[in-house]
């Protein structure tokens, strides 16, 4: 089942999990240690995140590590980059306007 990304991050625990695994790949047990909830609840959250296509699984021996799917998170960076460009352009418009206004005032 494919879920909407909105569902993934509507929950504070899931957001916290994303922040944790953004730093390094972690096993479900290591993730669970950071939270005061049952291992089952953590599994449920991990399942939702997987269904939202935000998690990548890595097998290392008998352990399963979860890491963040970077592509998905990159979309935020793309948006931020676009927003930065809009702001840059706006401010250049404003530079021109201020220049015009200053000259008018003289």
């Amino acid at each position, binding site marked *: 089942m494919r879920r*909407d*990304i*909105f569902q993934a*991050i*509507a929950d504070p625990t899931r*957001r916290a999990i994303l*922040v944790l695994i953004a730093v390094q790949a972690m096993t479900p047990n290591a993730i669970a240690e950071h939270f005061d909830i049952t291992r089952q609840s953590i599994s449920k959250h991990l399942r939702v995140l997987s269904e939202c296509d935000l998690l990548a699984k890595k097998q290392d021996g008998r352990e399963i590590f979860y890491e963040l799917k970077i592509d*998905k998170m990159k*979309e*935020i*960076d*793309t*948006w*931020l980059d*676009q*927003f*930065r*460009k*809009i*702001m*840059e*352009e*706006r*401010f250049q*418009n*404003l*530079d*021109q*306007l*201020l*220049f015009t*206004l*200053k000259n008018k005032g003289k």
Partner: protein
Amino acid sequence: MNLLFDFTVDKAAKTIYITREFAADQDLVWDAFTKAEFLDKWQAPKPYTLYTKEMDFRVGGRWLYAMVAPGMSPETAHQYSMVEYLEIRPKTSFSTRNTFADENGNPRTNAFSLVKNTFKQGNGITTVYIEKRFEDLAVLEMMATLGFKEGTIAGFGNLDELFRNLVTSK
């Protein structure tokens, strides 16, 4: 002249920090940020123009505006942005709550951002600090996933589109 521009994102704090210098005195820069006649001239990314429907710059007042695509008339605009003024310290700072609205200023979504603009006078230069906080990381995420599919125009049209999707997908 080399004017400082800094754009920093703190994802954990869901906040964007922007610092920008302008080669003008504080009074003038303040006016450019707070009077519709000036805002109309610089806020729209090209090739859009900005149409202000309402502007009431005082605490509790609001600015209701639309981005108008080339060849379109303001009357056909129905995607509006709304800026509500929460706090004003004349010439020094003002705080707003920004959201998307219809042409009558009815919010289109619960999603909003809080913005604080601060102005500092230097030697012939005014520095503006902008702090834009999203109410929820989910909003930022939705902007990222749904917005800007259409490519470079990246303007508010896309954000409107995005929020429309967000609302209808619930």
